[in-house]
């Protein structure tokens, strides 16, 4: 393969009201190269991708494709040029089959013969080791399989540049390995790949070159295989941010939460039912639940928080059955929850931080006789901001005005300051900058050391291995055994994430 330059970006500038998302970015991707685009959330990766794929137009700068300046004014134009894109949130219709979804993107004359199209899909998917049945409905596919549909769709259109946005976040470790093989094979055949990620080890394992973005600018280029993860992390976050937490040992205490045979049937055709979940949680330990998104994490969290109420006695907190209790009643008993969505569930975007404190902390003497005690609300809110280093103008700032990391610190701080006996946190560092992630991990460990039990639901395996005493995985609404982290290999965890675990669950530490 000749190493011709496939894509060259020169001085790309894109400004949104109140934010310069791309501030003069240069990027070069050669033919057959796997190029990483690294950066924290908000560094400008998504915007740059949208510029390349024609979703948004740059305010300044040039795009040079195979040596010719081009204007990519729509995704259709991008596909015509040979640019394919796999979004983090898949753009597939769940009610259509694989072949129908792929046909939607193709010219009409290529889709008239359905059988021929199906054969093409089979050929391409087999050639690259991504087995796919074109007649299956997308709603029945796992996340990994849906991603294959997206990739196959790009390949059928003969893309010569494939953009993948955080492709591994929905995959098990085994699936990641298969994906990487596919990508290497594609690159060998001359297809360029732009791999967007914030997971440094993956980038080191896969990519030839990397461009690192920080605050809308290129902060460095490197060959990831030749530099350490720490050096890359420094390029991503700058010099003055801590990038990891030291986690000490802990000695679990008395039994606090026990879940025995928790089942729940969803009404949502695309939701996940929970079946026969059993686990227990002791004081002073962090227990992790891994799993690919959409395998019942959301539902389990809601059943534990009280947003879904059940009848029966499956969930016992400090000996009391809480299945039918409302969220406030559970909070009164000492439970706290940090949900996955910060804006629009954990906090009301348009309301001030002080008002958002009232959302869950009203029981901390902030309300008396049905009236709000504003001085106390403000004091509580200021205390959260101070103790957890939330960067904001004041407690009157709206929740929406904070960065993801700062808002997450505020939400976690709001719960932690109420001294919960049990804290359930779902994806607490998802989309959060490294500095805030470290602060959040430290806060969780500090709570554990005070004797609280912590249930950590996460897709980030590094985070789980770093923090948890015990962990397991959730798949199709069933929970694997929860075993000591030290004895759980990543291969075994990967199998569990794919649903391969013993049916008869024996909770090892219970």
């Amino acid at each position, binding site marked *: 393969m000749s190493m011709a330059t496939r894509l060259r970006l020169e001085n790309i500038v894109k400004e*949104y009201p109140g934010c310069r998302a791309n501030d003069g970015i240069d990027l070069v991707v050669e033919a057959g190269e796997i190029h990483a685009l690294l950066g924290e959330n908000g*560094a400008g990766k998504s915007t740059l991708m949208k510029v390349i794929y024609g979703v948004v137009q740059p305010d300044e700068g040039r795009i040079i494709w195979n040596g010719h300046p081009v204007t990519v004014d729509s995704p259709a134009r991008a596909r015509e040029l040979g640019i394919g894109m796999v979004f983090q949130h898949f753009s597939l219709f769940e009610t259509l089959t694989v072949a129908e979804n792929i046909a939607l993107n193709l010219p009409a004359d290529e889709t008239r013969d359905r059988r021929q199209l199906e054969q093409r899909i089979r050929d391409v998917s087999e050639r690259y080791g991504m087995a796919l049945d074109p007649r299956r409905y997308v709603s029945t596919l796992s996340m990994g399989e849906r991603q294959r549909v997206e990739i196959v769709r790009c390949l059928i259109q003969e893309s010569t540049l494939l953009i993948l946005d955080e492709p591994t976040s929905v995959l098990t470790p085994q699936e990641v390995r298969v994906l990487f093989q596919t990508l290497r094979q594609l690159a060998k055949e001359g297809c360029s790949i732009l791999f967007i990620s914030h997971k440094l080890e993956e980038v080191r394992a896969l990519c030839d070159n990397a461009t690192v973005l920080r605050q809308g600018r290129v902060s460095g280029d490197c060959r990831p295989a030749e530099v350490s993860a720490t050096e890359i992390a420094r390029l991503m976050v700058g010099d003055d941010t801590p990038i990891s937490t030291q986690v000490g040992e802990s000695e679990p205490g008395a039994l606090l939460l026990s879940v025995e045979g928790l089942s729940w049937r969803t009404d949502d055709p695309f939701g996940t039912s929970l079946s026969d979940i059993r686990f227990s949680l002791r004081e002073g330990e962090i227990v992790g639940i891994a799993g690919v998104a959409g395998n019942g994490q959301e539902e389990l969290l809601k059943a534990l928080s009280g947003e879904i109420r059940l009848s029966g006695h499956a969930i016992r907190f400090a000996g009391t059955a809480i299945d039918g209790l409302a969220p406030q009643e559970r909070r009164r008993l000492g439970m706290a929850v940090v949900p996955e969505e910060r804006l629009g569930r*954990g906090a*009301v975007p348009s309301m001030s931080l002080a008002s958002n404190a009232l959302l*869950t902390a009203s029981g901390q003497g902030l309300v008396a006789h049905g*009236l709000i005690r504003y001085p106390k609300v403000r004091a509580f809110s200021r205390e959260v901001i101070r103790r957890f280093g939330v960067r904001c103008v004041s407690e009157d700032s709206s929740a929406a005005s904070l960065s993801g990391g700062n808002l997450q610190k505020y939400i976690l701080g709001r719960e932690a300051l109420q001294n919960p006996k049990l804290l359930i946190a779902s994806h607490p560092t998802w989309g959060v900058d490294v500095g805030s992630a470290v602060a959040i991990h430290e806060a969780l460990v500090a709570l554990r050391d005070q004797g609280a039990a912590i249930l950590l639901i996460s897709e980030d395996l590094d985070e789980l291995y770093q923090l948890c005493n015990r962990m397991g995985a959730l798949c199709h609404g069933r929970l694997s055994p929860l075993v000591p982290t030290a004895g759980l290999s990543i291969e075994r965890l990967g199998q569990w994430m794919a649903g391969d675990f013993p049916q008869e669950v024996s909770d090892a530490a219970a």
Partner: protein
Amino acid sequence: MLLLERRPVASPVMRWASPLLALLLTVVTGFFLFLAMGRDPLAGLKFFFVTPVSDVQGLAELGLKMAPLLLCAAGLTLCYRAKLWNIGAEGHFLMGALGASIMAVQLVDAQGPWVLPLVLLAGMAAAAAWAAIAAALKTHLNCNEILTTIMLNYIALNLLLYTVHGPLKDPYGFGFPQSVMFGDSALLPALVPGTRLHLGLAFGLLAALAVWALFARSFVGFQLNVVGEDPRAAAFAGFGARRLTWFAFLVAGALAGLAGASEVTGPIGQLVPQVSPGYGYTAIIVVFLGRMHALGIVAASALLALTFLGGEMLQIAMNLPKAVTGLFQGLLLFFLLTCDAFIHYRLRWRGPATAGVRSVAPAGEA
């Protein structure tokens, strides 16, 4: 090229300037409407906006019309803050008038200070019960409250018409569809002697004060706001949407019912078919124009009360049809909704060089 672009943050200035701008645009449009109809536009505007309130009697009449608007709007504010689009104030109002009238007719010969409260309570209870139907349909069968409340308005109207043509018709009323005149003990006392202004306005102002207190200080008010702003956050916090829906509907029903009861025990003194010129519908405009804020709805109810008086004045002085009231109210709402777009959006001029740039880019998406 002129672009409509989302503001990074909502404009607090526009939030309050928008109603004033809408009023200005309404006046300007009114000017040209009068011109088009071959009437003197300045005289027309003067008859509409100034003449009705140029003496004490006129101001008293303004207060008289404000009272039902304010009571209905106060209740609707609770619903709208929680994004419950209750369009049923008209029906609540009619049921309030009907309930109060039934009680007043039973007690037509009764004397004593207990009669009036009993009559008013009957009206409030009937209206709250009417609102409860929509609340139950919403919370138990997930029916859209906009549709159910509108339909219930028509049912309420026909129930009232049936009653006033049938069971409640005055047997000595020469066949007119109206009830007997209520006893003196069932009538609201006048607020300003020598005018028709009655205690209803005081009820309205008290209701506005209560709404202010509810949203400024109480936890229930906060919960209503959260349910409206962000239902998922409300569910996460455990603020029961059902419970709050019932609360908002029952209060809205009771207050609009009090308005209806005050109307029949106040200026009318008996039940008649045309007890409401559309107060319950106009109150919707009052709430939006008043920014769902207590002080705002007091001002807005005065303005919309004036449209009723001004409309009557134009009928008399310039021989214009009654529809002119609805026309001005509609213009005001139309312009308000238009101006409200500029709370979240702004106009920006872009040179043709970057034409094709998509304008309404979501803010903060980097």
